């Protein structure tokens, strides 16, 4: 699964990609944000210190969801008025990618999907707005303004924007989950499910003192 190693244009450290479609990664040693161009890597910025974080997940954590193995290869930390949450970037063993959101240890799995013809506009969507996609009837359950607090590892797009973005979370009575990401125009749609910790059969998690 690993692509051939390149070297960090900033410090020369080896940089490996675990997912061939990754567009961006971070250098583990000098914290440079590196974007993959045709031939080589280009430094586009530097990660500032990440906020203290108590997610049990880390880059390299493995898991299995519905008989499909995945490994965590990247992460975006979002900051909003009540703290932070993590969007972990997963690559599955069939080379598709997806996301695992961890907000105060409430977990949601999602995948980018083709939105139906009409997504509610950012100034239209409110708490309770219904939305129909892929035969699921969602209701909007939260609207969050957040910005990137940090990135880590491999991501499927080039991400380094500090301004506030709008996210709408939508849910169904049976645990289906969707996020509309208004950072792009047209907005992006991610759909998936709320999951329990045990549903994901994790390996290589972080350890917490007193909780072995």
């Amino acid at each position, binding site marked *: 699964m690993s692509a051939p190693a390149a070297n960090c244009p900033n410090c020369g450290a080896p940089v490996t990609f675990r997912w061939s479609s990754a567009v961006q990664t*971070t250098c*583990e040693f000098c*914290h440079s944000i590196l974007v993959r161009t045709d031939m080589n890597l280009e430094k586009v910025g530097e*990660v500032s*210190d*990440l*906020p*203290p*974080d*108590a997610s*049990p997940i*880390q*880059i390299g954590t493995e898991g299995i969801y519905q008989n499909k193995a995945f490994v965590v290869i990247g992460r975006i930390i979002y900051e909003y008025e*009540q*703290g932070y949450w993590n969007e972990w970037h997963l690559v599955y063993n069939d080379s598709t990618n997806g996301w695992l959101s961890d907000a*105060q*240890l*409430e977990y*949601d799995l999602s995948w980018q999907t083709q939105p139906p013809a009409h997504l509610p506009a950012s100034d239209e969507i409110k*708490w309770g707005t219904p939305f129909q996609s892929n035969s699921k009837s969602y*209701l909007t*359950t*939260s609207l969050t303004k957040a910005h990137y607090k940090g990135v*880590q590892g491999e991501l499927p797009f080039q991400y380094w924007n500090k301004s506030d973005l709008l996210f709408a979370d939508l*849910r*169904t*009575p*049976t*645990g289906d*989950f969707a996020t509309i990401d208004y950072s792009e125009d047209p907005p992006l749609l991610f759909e998936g499910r*709320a999951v329990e*910790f045990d549903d994901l059969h994790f390996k290589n*998690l*972080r*350890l*917490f*003192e*007193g*909780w072995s």
Partner: protein
Amino acid sequence: MASSIVTPPIVRPKSLNCPGCGAAVEIRGFAHTLNAVCPNCLSVLDATTPEFQILQRFQRKERIQPKIPLGTRAKLANIAYQVIGFQQREVQTGDDVFCWDEYLLFNPYYGFRYLTEYQGHWNVVRVLSALPLEVASGGKPAVEFQGRRYRHFDSLQARTNYILGEFPWQIRVGDSVDDRDFVSPPYMLSAESTAGEITWSLAEYTPGKQIWTAFQLPGSPPATSGVFANQPSPYEGKPGSAWRTWLWLTVALVAIALLFSVSSSNREVFQNTYLFTPGLKTDAAFVTPAFELTGRTSNVEIAVRTDLNNNWAYFNFALINEDTGQDFDFGREVSYYRDGDGSEGSPHDSVIVPRVPAGKYYLRVEPEMESRMLQSMSYQLTVRRDVPTHTFFWIAGILLLIPPIFISVRAAGFEAARWRESDYAPAPSSGGGGDDD
């Protein structure tokens, strides 16, 4: 220099000192903790900054000791949790203030759970990531979730009046949320709304004993008082099964009664017709010829059919065993009156003498009538052996009704006590009113 990108192998809890009083403040929720309360001076501190800035100071004359101390661990559904936060909340209804306790439980992998306690009633609570569907049930609000229908119980404003420990959200004494509760015992769904967003949580009623065992607490849990909103009824399903049992027993009883009717020999052992004219003789008593009563000890029916019309007669009977002299004495009044409006009484009557042993018997009969009427009466006496009777079965049938009625009344009483605490309580007939138990 600590690397922020390479994650340290083990995450350690931190302990900091209160900038107000210098006391040590333990942080058990790692970086999840946003606010922590100094256990010494009751300052609410911002746990996300190194300065541990004071956000609020609240003072209370009386310190509250949580029934489950902070730091206590328990296994719930096989997952270990630690108590890291405590808040007491209150709701004001009229002049009354009701308080309950909420414990925040934490596991670094499985996340947060809550434990609530009100008057000895405990609930284990978790936040839902699925969305209950709001429906109206007969005009009353209800929600549906995972195949269960929850009835609206109450809507209230909950205010935080005391906090201890740490929280993964911003918290201050005086915070208040609007809460709506929906019940389907042993579950309760609660919708807490703040700033236009609703958080749903699912509570499961858990007996205090179970909590005490899970947390390995000394002594015994506080006694419960009253009926809690989602407390499972001890009569749950019992009226239905009691009535089903009643139905089967009644069917069996009817079957036995029919069997009895069929197996009764119901033999006529004597019949004769007599004429009686009052005032003719001073002593009207006579005896019948003897007749044989055979078979097992059983009943004997003596039936009188008269031609009385707007008149009455009284019969003194004695059924006498010719060999032993054992006698069964009884009397019967027969009266029959009728006019244009209808009739009263009957010209016929019968009496059943129970448990008469086999043997040779005769009847002693003494009819009486009002003598001045000078109207004679013709009557026929029939004696039957072993007739089917249903008295026992009627009594048994009534007795069988007692358990299902009793259970139904108790079950209804429990539900009435539950809903007395809801928004749907009948208006109190007297002011105030304490709970009787």
